[in-house]
Every structure is written in structure tokens, then in C-alpha cells.
């Protein structure tokens, strides 16, 4: 808390006072700090955004090193362990980390499979164990796993098993590779479309602007999900996972670029009429330098904020499409594909852990929203007097 005398505060430019308050930095630091530093300082003061950023970094690292972190491959399963409930890790000095293996039998009356831990046996768990082989970052082959059963033939279900008896935790990790990347790739395509169309719309104005704005309006005024579904339904079911992934991404971004185009156009129009841009023209600055040196820096931060708020929408869209069976299909693994198992209430009732991939979606979406909110709030360090 800064308490200054009235005189001192009044003699300083308001913005310095505000920036000192906003960033918690000293006056001298603030006066010679470039824009990105001010943004970063303000962002740092935004606690939720910090938490979100850390969560995102953890999640993307986990996705990148999914093979290493996951105890199993997506293809490894054990039919007799279908719908196996989650197993908590136990610890004893004699055995180290362990779980008890289970035996299952089917209850004749309810037809449910009941799993009983066999407390006389142990499945020992350990760090850096050898197991299924995988390829790390698409470069290195390895079979070392961060944490898992020491005997590769044993099973362990930290978050439960799915319909086929695969480990859900491993699948969620592998699924994050698609679910988290589709958001980024989709938004990148949207951004390119948005920058291009929003850019020419804002730059040329006139009828070009009118037409593009009308198209944006129309796309925004119709429900997107039926549209996505309709387009996604045309992706032939016999396509491989990679073309389907690309096609779905393109479909999502075909509908998702509108908002970004609006932001770009709005910012462009606003900045174009700023006095300092006119001043740059009068300084004899060539057009491309005006755009890249004078105009673009003033709204990149806003665009980054909009982008980070658009990513969760993409992740949700992919999840919804796959969940409804019109997006990615098994054997591809994404959070939406995993949730397909949880479509029927009856299944969820017997195996509620099948909703765990949904939890992963929620965490990713919340984290992106926190970061996006934080960026939006700090995107314009001088914003307070702009109105």
C-alpha cells in the first residue's frame, strides 16, 4: 500500500501513479520500462492468471512427455480388468510403493463385475521402470516410464480402467496431446484467417469491409455446433486419424475465425486514427514500418489475449464433437473420444471415473480462461485513460 502526501501525488503524471500501483515496481523502474515489461508486471500481479499459466505449462509439458509419464501405452489393455476402479498407491517400508492386484468375478444378480483386492499379493511400483516402448517427442525411442509397475506385465489403474481395460490415466495423458494441440492449431488457423480477413477489412474499408463484416455477422448469428456437426459428418469414417484430425481442425477454425477477425479489424481501425500514427506518417515513415513498428505493437497484446480466450472454446468444440461421435474416432485418443465411453448414464453410474477426462477438460479450460482474463486486463498498461 502506497501512501503519499497529496502534493507529491498531484505533481506526478496520473499514469505513473497508476502504473506504480498496478505493478508494484518503483517509479524509476516504471518510467523507463517498455510496454511488454509493464504488461508482464501487471500480469504477475494477477494471481489467478499466474496459477492458470503454471497449470498450462504443466499440462503442455505432460502432453509433450506423455509417453514417459504414462505407465502404459494407449494400445495396452487387459480385458479382464474392464471398468477396473481406481487404485490408490500404498506405501510400506518393506514393499516400497505398491498396490494389491485384484481378482474379479461377476455378480450373478446385478451382472456387475466386482473387483476384490488380493491383499496377499503385491504389485510393486517404482520410478523409472521399464515398460511399453514409446517414442519421445517423435525423436527418441524409449521404454522408461516415470512411475509404474516394476514388472511390465502387471497392471495398475491410478484413475481406473475403461471399457477395454486400458489405463485411463495413460489415455488421458496421450489424449491431451490431441486435445491441447487441436486448440492451438485450430486457433492458429483461425488467427491467420482472422488477421487476413480482419486486416483487409480494416485496411481497405469500403465495400470490402461491408461484405466481410456481413459474412462475420451471419456466421456469428447461426448456431455453431449444428454447423460443425454438419461439416464434420462429411469427413469419411474410413479416413486415418491424422487426416481426420486436420480436417476437424480446419472445420473448427472455419467457423471460429469470426471473433478474431472482429478484434483485428476493430483494433486496426482504432489505431489507424491515433494521432501517433498520423505523426509517424508525417515523420515520413514508410507504410510497412508504420504498420509493423508503430501499429502492430499496440495491438498484439490484445490479440494474444483474444487468442488465449479462443483456445478453450476450440478445446471444448473438439471435445463436444468427439463426444457426440462426429469428431475424432477411436483408435485416435482425445479427451472427447474418451468421454464417448461415458455417454450413457448407466455406464457412468457403474464407472463414474470415466468422467475424469471431463475433469481434464475443465482444468484446461479454466486455466486458459484465467490466463486470458489476466492478459486482457494487463494488455493495455495505459488503458485507463483511453476512454
Amino acid at each position, binding site marked *: 500500500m502506497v501512501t503519499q502526501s497529496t502534493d507529491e501525488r498531484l505533481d506526478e503524471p496520473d499514469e505513473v501513479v497508476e502504473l506504480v500501483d498496478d505493478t508494484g515496481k518503483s517509479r524509476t523502474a516504471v*518510467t523507463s520500462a517498455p510496454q511488454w515489461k509493464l504488461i508482464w508486471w501487471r500480469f504477475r500481479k494477477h494471481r489467478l492468471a499466474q496459477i492458470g499459466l503454471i497449470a498450462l505449462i504443466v499440462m503442455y509439458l505432460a502432453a509433450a512427455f506423455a509417453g514417459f509419464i504414462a505407465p502404459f501405452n494407449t494400445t495396452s489393455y487387459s480385458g479382464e480388468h474392464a471398468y477396473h476402479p481406481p487404485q490408490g498407491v500404498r506405501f510400506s517400508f518393506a514393499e516400497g510403493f505398491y498396490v494389491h492386484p485384484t481378482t474379479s468375478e461377476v455378480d450373478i444378480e446385478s451382472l456387475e463385475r466386482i473387483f476384490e483386492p488380493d491383499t496377499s499379493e503385491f504389485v510393486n511400483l517404482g520410478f523409472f521402470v521399464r515398460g511399453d516402448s514409446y517414442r519421445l517427442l517423435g525423436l527418441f525411442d524409449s521404454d522408461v516410464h516415470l512411475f509404474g509397475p516394476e514388472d511390465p506385465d502387471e497392471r495398475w489403474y491410478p484413475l481406473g480402467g475403461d471399457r477395454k481395460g486400458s489405463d485411463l490415466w495413460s489415455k488421458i495423458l496421450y489424449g491431451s496431446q490431441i486435445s491441447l494441440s487441436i486448440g492451438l492449431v485450430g486457433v492458429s488457423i483461425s488467427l491467420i484467417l482472422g488477421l487476413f480477413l480482419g486486416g483487409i477489412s480494416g485496411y481497405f474499408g469500403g465495400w470490402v469491409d461491408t461484405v466481410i463484416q456481413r459474412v462475420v455477422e451471419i456466421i456469428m448469428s447461426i448456431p455453431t455446433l449444428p454447423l460443425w456437426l454438419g461439416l464434420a459428418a462429411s469427413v469419411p469414417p474410413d479416413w486415418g486419424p491424422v487426416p481426420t484430425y486436420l480436417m476437424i481442425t480446419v472445420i473448427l477454425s472455419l467457423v471460429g475465425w469470426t471473433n478474431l477477425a472482429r478484434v483485428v479489424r476493430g483494433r486496426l481501425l482504432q489505431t489507424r486514427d491515433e494521432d501517433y500514427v498520423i505523426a509517424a506518417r508525417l515523420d515520413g515513415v514508410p507504410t510497412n514500418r508504420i504498420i509493423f513498428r508503430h501499429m502492430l505493437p499496440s495491438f498484439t497484446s490484445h490479440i494474444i489475449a483474444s487468442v488465449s480466450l479462443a483456445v478453450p472454446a476450440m478445446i471444448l468444440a473438439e471435445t463436444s464433437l468427439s463426444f457426440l461421435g462426429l469428431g475424432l474416432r477411436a483408435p485416435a485418443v482425445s479427451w472427447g473420444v474418451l468421454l464417448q465411453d461415458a455417454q450413457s448414464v448407466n455406464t457412468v453410474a457403474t464407472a463414474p471415473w470415466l468422467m475424469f477426462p471431463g475433469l481434464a477438460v475443465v482444468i484446461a479450460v479454466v486455466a486458459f480462461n484465467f490466463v486470458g482474463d489476466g492478459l486482457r486486463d494487463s494488455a493495455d498498461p495505459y488503458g485507463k485513460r483511453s476512454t
Partner: protein
Amino acid sequence: MIRRRRHPRRDVGRELDEAAVTADELASPDAVLDIRGLQTVFRSDEGVVRAVDDIDLVVRRGTTTCVVGESGSGKSATARSIIQVVDVPGQVEAGRILFRPDDSRPAVDMARLDPRGEAIRGIRGREIGLIFQEPMASLSAVHTIGNQISEVLELHTDLPPAEIRDRVIEELRSVGIPRAEERIDAFTFQLSGGMRQRAMIAMALIARPSLLIADEPTTALDVTTQAQILDLLGDLKRERDMTMIFITHDLGVVAEIADDVVVMRHGKVVETGPVDQIFHDPQHDYTKELLASLPQRHSATRAVVTEPETPPTTTVGGSADESVRHTAPDVTPLLSVRDLRMEFDTVSGALFGRKRKEKVVAVNGVSLDVLPGSTVGLVGESGCGKTTLGRSIMRVYQPTAGEIRYRSGDGTVADLATMSEKQLLPYRRAMRMIFQDPYGSLNPRMTVQQVIGEPLRVAGMAQGSELSDRVADMLDRVGLKRAMATRYPHAFSGGERQRIGIARALITGPELVIADEAVSALDVSVRTQILELLAGLQSELGLTYLFVSHDLSVVERICDRVAVMYYGNIVEEGSAAEVFEDPKHGYTRALLSAVPIADPRLRGTRERIVYRPDDVPAADDEAA
């Protein structure tokens, strides 16, 4: 210290009784308002601001008391504190506000009333009326003005609706709104600025309050409209036997209307006294400083007050120079504008496709000559096209028609109006511009060094250490420190930013500088410093100025020649002396007669002239 949060509901009568004060506690028997030790404090997480810091103030019945000060002086907070409508988180924390509506009643200490209670609400609007600076923002845009004015009567009287409507129409008529019976159902955005302020006045006065508080009511208005509103307020005050507190930053207005003056600075009262004493025998240094920064109209010479330490060569506008400049008709003009025309396409009603393309003629065939070394003033009110003309000459816009002839140092004359951006490049270094808004015109993402050095850099005229040396020299010249080059614009105050803007304009070594309202966003004391700087630089560097301004006193003070613009045309052009002493055109006369004279002794010595041509679109709207 009195701290009041929300009281439980109290009986109004009892609350007023508790706050009642006998008349002999007032400073003088004829006081309407007697403020003692008032403190209004804004407390927030970022700290404490004492907006009003222990002030005393007495307002005598039937007089006009002007509270004058620069921005941040706490004058508005004082006005709001009186009826306890300070914006959150502000709060009246100490002091007495004794108010006595008329001689037959006891005084009430309003500081002791609950700010949300019924007792003070009975005083607001009925006993004390308030007028604000921005009528557009201070009135609701989604309610008709009639609705908003009627509300005061609905609240404070038991009149039937039909009668209220009649009273409102009558009131609108009495504040000079033509066709009041139609306008009562108008929304604010359908009225002009002057009409809106009249509606606001009607609202403040309809319940016949004994005290009117006007908080910068004319600051957002053009000078001719300001004059009308001031006249109106004066007439109404006389007719209705009111007392008025008038908050303003403009000493000219103070000299025109005040009986008593209170000078405020940083939340404190620095000087109080009758208007004549304040203007002719000021006691406090700050008051003297303020008065010194006033442009001296009608004074013998228009010389700029110069700093004693500046070398004598920097004196500008002295009679010797002037005669040289004015008696040299054979000098070829540096800039010569011929029949310049600038039209804009505007799209009105752009919402939902009801688009109608309209052509707005901002500059309507203007011709103007600017002699080398002179300062030409371009004056007019908002919307007259002066800024557009300045910017068209700078080729910010592509003129629709006409010529902009510019004579280079080697004597060749070129027409800039039709040049391509590339051809213009050398001229962009010879003709520079200073912008009005010291905030918007500096790129917040670039350091001062980068902002000032940009023109040299892109022209390849200087690089590396040579560039930073030249920028540092320039900073010296405009009165900033060399070390400031690494800072960003947000580290500077308005006046300092304007100095940066000047440095950027001068770094290319220009011949002509167009200053577009270069000082109008600044407080008076800062304004004087910037004007002095400009004058000094002119004689030092032999610059030519085209000075675009709405402020006649500034133009009169520094310009050799003056052109008056009105609705896209130059209606009068001549030497400053001719135009100001003996204006020919009706509009110039009206404009000059509207400028407040900053000397209370000259009050009423001048007739107010109203210019009302038949062919002007908005004339009906603004006519009083």
C-alpha cells in the same frame, strides 16, 4: 473527525433539528453558505487523497462566488461536498457546512446530515441546484429531457402531472430553448451542446432553489455559446434573486461574473476576496502567478513575457520586428494555399444498414498566405474546419481540390496538393506539425529517444551515437533533461509531453510548423511556459508558425496575422492588430465580443454581439 456510514432510518424532522444551528453562528448575517474546516477525502487501496483539505468559505446572499483553480485543485470536490454527492470512495470527513436558505429560517449544518438520508435529499434540487460541466454525460441518454426535469418537481412538489409538464415547458422557454413544447420530448443526443446545457440549467432551477452551484458549466462549450450561457445565468440570477457558486478554471470568466473569488490549489484555499482585489491587488504568490499567465488583452503591446535569463535576441513580437514583418508586401509567401477544398464522405445512421452517404464540406475553397518568419493564427469554433485545413496542408488528407504551394529554400515553388507520398518526403521534413493531444500523439510503446529520432532515422539522416546526440541536444532546447531520452512517454506530464512533441517537430530542422491547438489541453500556467518556448524557438531557429486555435487570447498574443474560419470558410483575414481592434466581419465581431475580458473593471463596457446568418444549418438551434 466525524465518520458517518449508513445511519438507521431517522426521523427527518429530528435529523434537521439536530443539525440546526442558530443564525449567530454564521460568519456574517447575510451568509447563505458558511463552510468551515471542510475536509473531503478519497480513501482507496492505493492511498489517501485529500481532495478538499480544511477549507473555509463564505457565500453572501445574492452574490456570485467564483471558485477558481487548475485541474486537481479540489474545486469540483468542494462543490460536490456541499450537498454531499461526492463520488465514491470520497467522503466528507470533517468540517461544518452551514446553509441558510433564507433569512427567516435557521441555518442547517449539512455536514451532519446523513448523505443518503431524507433530510439532505429535501435540500438537494429544491434548495440547492447543481449544474455540471458535461451536459451530455450528466444527463441520461435514454430519458427525454422533459422526463428528467419533471422528476425534480415530482420529487419536491405535489403538483399534478399536467401542471408539471406546463411548468417544465415554461422553464425550458425561460432558459432560451426555442420550440420548448416540442423539445421537452427530445433526447439529449438530439440537442446541440448549448441546448443541452440550457436544459441542464432548467433542471437545476425549476424548483426555484435559493443557491445554484455551477461546476464548470461552460468549459465544454464554444466561446460564443459560453457567452450566451453566462449571460443567461446572470439574467436568471438577477430575476430570481439567487445566490450562485461558480466553479471554473478560467480567470476570464471569473472577471466577467464574480463578486467574490476563492482561489484553490491542491485542495486548499490560497486566497479569498472581492473580485477587484483579487485581480488588482493579489496577495498570494499563486494568485499572482495565475494572473501573470493570463493573456493581457487590450494591453499596449503583445510582447510575450520572457524569462529574464534568456538572451535579448529571443524577444519576439516586439514592435521593431513587427513593423518589418508587416511592411514587407514584396516578400514571397513561404506557403500559399489557393482555393483549397476538403470534402469527407460520412455515413450517417450506420447502424443496421440505414446508410446514407453524405458529403461534408469541411474546408470550402480557402486561400491563405503565410510569410516566412511570421506567425499566422487560424481561429474558429469547433467544427469550423480549422483543424482539417491544418491537416490538409500537412497532407494528412488528400485535398479534394485546390493548391498548396510551398516555396523551398532555393526559391522553387511546388504544389503539394497533388503530390504522391514519395514526392512529399522532402517536404515532410520542411513542414512539421505539433498535435493537440499530448497523450495520443506520442506512441506509448516507444522511448522518447525513439519518438524524437524516428524522422531522422527513417530518412537515414543520422544513426547511432550521432542520432542520440542530436536527440539529446533537442531535449536541451525544449527544456527537458538529456537523461530523459530513455524514458517512455507515460513518465511525463502533459506539459512535458508537449515539449517532446515540439522536439519531434523540430528535429528535422523545419521551416514551417503547424501547431494544432498545441496548448489547449494544458493548464494555464503550463500553457504560458509552452508559448514562451515556442516564441523563443521561433526567433532562434527562424521558424514560421501556422497556429491553429480556438482560443482567441492565445492567438492575439503570439500571432502576426490572423485568419478567422467559420463553417469551412475564412471569413476574415488580416494583421492581428486589424482583426482584433477593428473586426470587419459580423462573425469575428461576435466571436471577439464573446471572449471574456480578464479584468473585472472592464465588465459591462462591451456590447455582446450575436452573429446570426440566415444560411447556416444549426443557427436556429443555437440562437438565444
